[in-house]
């Protein structure tokens, strides 16, 4: 009989399946991968908490593009720049766009808005009216579904130092509205501390939080937006004028508590005044990116990762030379963000690209920005939601 058993090549697999099943019944790892690519974006954080194997599967390089297609989600960056006194923001993504129309902010009632903060969950963004002739007005919007809602204004006569936004990862049982909080730091008249205001979507009002006794100039108009890692928001402060030391300002929105995380000593002792530093969040952990010039025309990128968050201890994860990158793409590419543990997001004149530091360029998108100033990581599903219905 010429019939062969159907599972002859599968025989080895079914033996190793028992090892891959995690000791229980259930599905082999391939099927779990297929399953996770179909889970809606809101439920993915809960799935990451199920086991380390599931978490590793969601961070695999092949996962993101399949998940965006199957679970109807968008994942990319909102890039913002200012030209001719007008702010302009665009959405760029490594994967194809599932919506027929590109995601942008043109649905807002004002033509000139500036993105202040983007939440890590539910795809919400906080924008402010940037036209100085009109009274400043804050909006919360969901660009993927073109929904927006105006917020009551905070004390706008104090200049904004930094803004951050957090949203509840999945809709609660009691309401389907998106719940969020917006934290705004502003500079009081005396300029010796930071005023802190928190907007709560359930009360739909701003509330004053305890002041932060830091010099506001160190946080003023940071070049990079807040980085969400370990459940808190982080900003890299400008270097201290006297000592030149830098640290990371961490603010926990839930506890309304803050602390300063010093940078690794090796980085502080690096005697390079031209070293460029950024912070990023990779797989939920805080990372420090340090760019130095090792030799003429050779840039070296060091990536430090948070080994112990409670103690504030760093660990050097990798050192990569960007010589090949600059040889291929030219010297004028600027590192924007670390998209995943091997992929960096860079921007240059009128284009952005995702570059795998080991394998080479992955994707490139042309944009109409000459020099991008702010980059916000944006992930959202395409489901419309109520934006913070006020509870009475």
């Amino acid at each position: 009989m010429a019939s062969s058993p159907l599972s002859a090549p599968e025989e080895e697999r079914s033996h190793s399946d028992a090892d891959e099943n995690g000791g229980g019944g259930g599905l082999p790892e391939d099927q779990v991968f297929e399953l996770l690519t179909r889970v809606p974006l809101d439920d993915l954080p809960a799935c990451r908490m199920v086991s380390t194997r599931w978490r590793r599967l969601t961070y695999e390089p092949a996962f993101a593009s399949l998940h965006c297609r199957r679970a109807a989600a968008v994942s990319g960056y909102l890039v913002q720049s200012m030209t001719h006194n007008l702010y302009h923001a665009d959405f760029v993504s490594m994967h194809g766009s599932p919506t027929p129309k590109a995601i942008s902010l043109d649905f807002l009632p004002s033509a000139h808005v500036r993105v202040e903060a983007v939440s890590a969950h539910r795809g919400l963004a906080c924008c402010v009216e940037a036209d100085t002739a009109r009274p400043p007005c804050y909006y919360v919007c969901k660009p993927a579904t073109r929904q927006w809602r105006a917020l009551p204004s905070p004390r706008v006569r104090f200049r904004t130092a930094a803004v951050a936004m957090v949203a509840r990862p999945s809709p609660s049982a009691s309401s389907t509205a998106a719940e969020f909080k917006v934290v705004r730091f502003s500079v009081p008249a005396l300029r010796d501390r930071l005023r802190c205001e928190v907007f709560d979507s359930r009360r739909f009002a701003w509330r004053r939080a305890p002041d932060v006794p830091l010099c506001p100039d160190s946080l003023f108009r940071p070049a990079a937006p807040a980085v969400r890692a370990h459940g808190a928001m982080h900003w890299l402060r400008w270097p201290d004028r006297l000592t030149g030391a830098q640290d990371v300002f961490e603010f926990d929105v839930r506890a309304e508590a803050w602390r300063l995380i010093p940078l690794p000593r090796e980085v502080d002792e690096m005697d390079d005044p031209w070293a460029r530093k950024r912070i990023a969040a990779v797989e939920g952990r805080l990372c420090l990116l340090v760019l130095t010039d090792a030799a003429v025309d050779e840039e070296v990128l060091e990536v430090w990762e948070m080994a112990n968050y409670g103690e504030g201890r760093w660990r050097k994860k990798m050192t990569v030379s960007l010589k090949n990158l600059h040889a291929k793409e030219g010297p004028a590419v600027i590192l924007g963000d670390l998209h995943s543990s091997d992929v960096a997001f860079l921007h240059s004149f009128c284009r952005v690209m995702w570059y795998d530091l080991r394998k080479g360029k992955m994707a490139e998108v042309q944009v109409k920005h000459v020099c991008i100033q702010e980059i916000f990581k944006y992930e959202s599903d395409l489901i419309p939601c109520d934006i913070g219905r006020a509870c009475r």
Partner: protein
Amino acid sequence: MAPPATDAATTKQEQQHAAGGEGVEVGGDLRLVAECGTVVRLSRSAARMSTTLFDMIEAGCAEGGIPIKGADVGTLRLVAAYCEKHAPHYDPVASAARLRDPFPPFPIEFTPASYAVKPVTQLDPDPHGLEAWDRKFISDLPDNSALFNLIIVANLMAIEDLVDLGCTAVADKMRGKTPDEIRVALDIENDYTPEQEAEVRRENAWAFED
């Protein structure tokens, strides 16, 4: 589980099929042998949906019984019923585009998930009643392990549409559940150490105190 009435229809089809093939002997239905030895019959047109069986038919080694290791009779019967129902409307290109290829070379209309807000007027999305049949098929399954066996066997036989249906059903079951509930439902072992678990929990902690 092919009713004999379809034999007449299928002989015509697989005669055309065989004419395009290597001129193999006329086949009737394929015989799939489950783990316990019971035979489940599957017509050739329905077997087209399974890439493995299709390749075997093409190669001419689909005679006699085809043992399917690891599949019990109930699951095989369900798989056969699914294939019989979907076989007349099976389009390999469309299913590949929907499932496997993240960057297909042709444009795809992207429909939001079923629980999204739908426009008022819409073309009938379910012309053959297949989606309603699929929903009933999934809801008739007795429990999770039956669903998992279905996915495993469908993966074994390389029926992508059924794998997609099963995985989407399990993903829908996981909506709105806490990690503990997911672990119980899918029988997953929690291999986080307590420190790692506290760290991951803090990552997703909501800013309110509940």
